[in-house]
């Protein structure tokens, strides 16, 4: 097993307090701010996890108001993603698109968010209509903003409208003030802007920890793949840190509304600001879990040392690490970017949690990076991560195995406001197109997009931020690039469609799904698109062989997406659920669900809200929101079977090189699964056989999953299912479904 013993002598000696500062122009930037609107409100603390009000801000009309959070909202939508979807449903029409003023960005943390006694309880969910998919996107993010918003008095923040000038929305939860300020001279990129605004709005050094900034960067203005950074003040390092709401282009919506930043100043966080129903249970559950982390993490995933990058070499060993645009699952150079390297490169002198009380503390930081290119060339910066997705997406998937370049790509993605997962997949697509002659230097404006050419990869990113050249085309994302390349006649349309790794317009995240049918569904049979946060079933399916039938896979694709949806309703981070397990987990029934942790979640929800639930009710809560989101997609003109199709690269080998690289495996499947004789077939015949077998299985899986979810063969929730879930009380929801039955 891959267990590196932590060796402190291998950790690089890097001063984690040293970095370039950006405060020189602070006073002038502040002086240029002009108050456009100011209102006062009465700050409050939640009662049993809820404030029972949300905040609505229209940056176009400057309307600012409180809205009640009704009992029905809490019963049906719980909070977090549920509240986001409900507010968005009420704000938009079926014809609304991402750049219309009525589109909203909703940030909601959920009732449990902000407790400090258990690990991973500081998450916010961000919901908006996506510029990439034209349907609701939800993105889960750490940092302090969500809990500070809640402890200022609001269960959600709804932002609507479009401003004519750059604005900052400031919520002061200590003084009870909300201001919309014109911000004409503020810096653009996140690592600078978040630092400047933290200093600007904190009243003194001790107040820094009470500030969180939501912002994006230059690339969000010129691309569809912009993300949002959520900051927190890292006391030990003495700097701001960033976590990302990455997927689906919410940063692009943010800049389209001309929002420069949203800043929350909350109260000093302490003990029980959620005023939970049963503090003792929460404290007891937390103590038990912290002990488990301390005892087991050093022998299990080593999250505290490595963060999520601990799985880089594991994915490589199981042929699952996406390499060269998801063609292959491993690479001889993976050792250069594996967890042993990141363990030595990331600062180990400090505990890195993205919210108070997270003993898993996986938010590693690589300090002291001296930037080699672009506008921050020569600056010394701290890079958050790299997380697994960044190492795989920006690294192996693009053939970049130089860790310093990888960190620089990660840094620029973050500060420019680009989703690292999306960028990794779109750049890998560009590189494969370049390799196959679909693109060339003339078409890329001189960029040499050979695998592993990190310098031109970075230049493409700088172009995206400057709004110039081929970077602007790349910044439209894989779906629009495919359409453009096909329209221009630059290559075989089928090949371009096969290798462009997107579904519903969203780029795939960084796991190879070819040999796991369940994961193919885990990616494409999703609400928002192929992000692994709905279901990650590769081991269960491909390695453990626990899902031998379509029905078994469908059951997993019923349970896990619902279980994981629940984290986003409440403000939980997914990682503490299954990146450490209790010592006696193996002896428990359904050990793969980590039953003790599931019970912890049930107990914490009940103890926070005072509403007693069990593990079945937990799934039922999620099912309401999950099915509501499906209906929302249908209302927006998507969400049907045709929208759940997967690109063939995610299902099997597209090219002869891919086939030949794993010929033994594929030939064996032809003999054993398809009952054909591979020795009597040409390579083309074998590839054609795989295509039809794999596509056929995917369709069979789709049938089984829809049936298990209570949907029609076209993917529409039935009226019976809506009734079971209590969603039939919303006539508009029923009307949408009726049109498709």
């Amino acid at each position, binding site marked *: *097993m*891959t*267990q590196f013993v932590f060796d402190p002598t291998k950790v690089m000696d890097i001063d984690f307090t040293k970095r370039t500062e950006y405060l020189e122009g602070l006073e002038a930037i502040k002086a240029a701010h002009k108050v456009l609107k100011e209102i006062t409100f009465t700050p409050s603390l939640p009662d049993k996890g809820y404030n029972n009000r949300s905040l609505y801000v229209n940056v176009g009309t400057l309307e600012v108001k409180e809205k009640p959070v009704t009992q029905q909202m809490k019963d049906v939508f719980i909070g977090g993603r549920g509240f986001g979807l409900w507010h968005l449903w009420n704000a938009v029409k079926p014809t609304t698109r991402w750049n219309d003023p009525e589109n909203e960005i909703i940030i909601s943390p959920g009732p449990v968010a902000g407790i400090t006694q258990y690990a991973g309880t500081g998450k916010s969910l961000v919901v908006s209509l996506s510029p990439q998919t034209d349907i609701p996107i939800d993105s889960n993010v750490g940092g302090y903003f969500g809990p500070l918003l809640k402890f200022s008095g609001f269960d959600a923040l709804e932002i609507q409208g479009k401003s004519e000038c750059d604005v900052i929305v400031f919520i002061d939860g200590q003084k009870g003030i909300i201001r919309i300020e014109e911000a004409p001279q503020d810096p653009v990129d996140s690592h600078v802007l978040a630092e400047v605004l933290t200093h600007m709005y904190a009243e003194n050094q001790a107040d820094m920890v009470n500030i969180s900034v939501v912002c994006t960067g230059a690339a969000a203005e010129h691309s569809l793949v912009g993300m949002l950074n959520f900051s927190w003040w890292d006391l030990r390092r003495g700097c701001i840190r960033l976590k990302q709401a990455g997927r689906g282009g919410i940063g692009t919506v943010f800049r389209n509304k001309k929002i420069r930043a949203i800043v929350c100043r909350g109260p000093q966080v302490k003990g029980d600001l959620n005023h939970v129903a049963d503090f003792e249970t929460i404290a007891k559950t937390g103590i038990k879990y912290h002990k488990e982390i301390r005892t087991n993490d050093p*022998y*299990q*995933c080593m999250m505290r040392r490595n963060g999520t990058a601990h*799985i880089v*070499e*594991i*994915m490589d*060993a*199981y042929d699952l690490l996406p390499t060269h645009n998801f063609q292959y699952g491993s690479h001889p150079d993976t050792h250069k970017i594996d967890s042993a390297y990141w363990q030595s490169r990331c600062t180990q002198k400090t505990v890195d949690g993205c919210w108070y009380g997270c003993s898993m503390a996986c938010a590693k930081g690589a300090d002291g990076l001296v930037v080699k290119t672009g506008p921050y060339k020569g600056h010394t910066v701290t890079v958050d991560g790299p997380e*697994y997705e960044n190492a795989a997406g920006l690294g192996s998937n693009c053939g970049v195995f130089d860790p310093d370049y990888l960190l620089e790509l990660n840094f620029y993605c973050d500060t420019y406001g680009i989703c690292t997962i999306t960028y990794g997949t779109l750049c890998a697509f560009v590189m494969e197109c370049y390799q196959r002659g679909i693109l060339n230097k003339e078409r890329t404006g001189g960029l040499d997009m050979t695998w592993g050419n990190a310098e031109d990869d970075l230049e493409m990113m700088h172009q995206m931020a400057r709004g110039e050249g081929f970077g602007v085309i790349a910044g439209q994302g894989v779906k629009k690039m495919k359409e453009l390349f096909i329209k221009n006649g630059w290559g075989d349309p089928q090949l371009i469609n096969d290798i462009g790794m997107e579904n519903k317009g969203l780029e795939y995240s960084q*796991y190879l799904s070819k040999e796991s049918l369940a994961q193919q569904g885990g990616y494409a049979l999703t609400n928002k698109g192929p992000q*692994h*946060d709905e*279901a*990650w*079933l*590769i*081991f*269960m399916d491909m*390695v*453990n*062989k*626990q899902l031998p039938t379509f029905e078994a896979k469908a059951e997993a694709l019923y349970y896990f997406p619902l279980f994981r949806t629940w984290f986003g309703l409440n403000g939980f981070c997914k990682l503490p659920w*299954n*990146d450490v*397990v209790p010592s006696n*987990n*193996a*002896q428990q029934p359904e*050990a*793969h669900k*980590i039953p003790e942790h599931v019970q912890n979640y049930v107990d914490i929800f009940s103890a926070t809200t005072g509403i007693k639930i069990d593990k079945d009710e937990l799934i039922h809560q999620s099912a309401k929101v999950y099915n509501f989101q499906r209906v929302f997609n249908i209302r927006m003109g998507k969400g049907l079977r045709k929208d759940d199709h997967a690109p063939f690269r995610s299902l099997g080998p597209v090219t002869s090189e891919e086939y030949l690289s794993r010929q033994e495996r594929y030939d064996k499947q032809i003999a054993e699964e398809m009952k054909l004789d591979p020795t009597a077939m040409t390579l083309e015949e074998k590839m054609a056989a795989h295509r039809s077998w794999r596509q056929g299985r995917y369709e069979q899986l789709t049938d089984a999953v829809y049936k298990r979810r209570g949907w029609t063969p076209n993917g529409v929730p039935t009226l019976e299912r809506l009734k079971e879930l209590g969603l039939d009380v919303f006539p508009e929801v029923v009307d949408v479904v009726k049109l498709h039955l």
Partner: protein
Amino acid sequence: MIQVNGDGMEWQDGLTVRGVLVYRNFRFPLLIITVNGELIQPKAYDTTLVPDEAEVQVIHLMSGG
């Protein structure tokens, strides 16, 4: 011959649970291993012998994702 997660694997004298993991390149740290239905604790991977014809289950918990 033994079965590991349903796949055949050559058996040899002295084969331990650790030997199965190394042979299959099962490097993931969160595993539940049974040999003929009997749960093997991690500390016994090096010393537990796997008999011929054994049914070995190496369940990888999810992590990742």
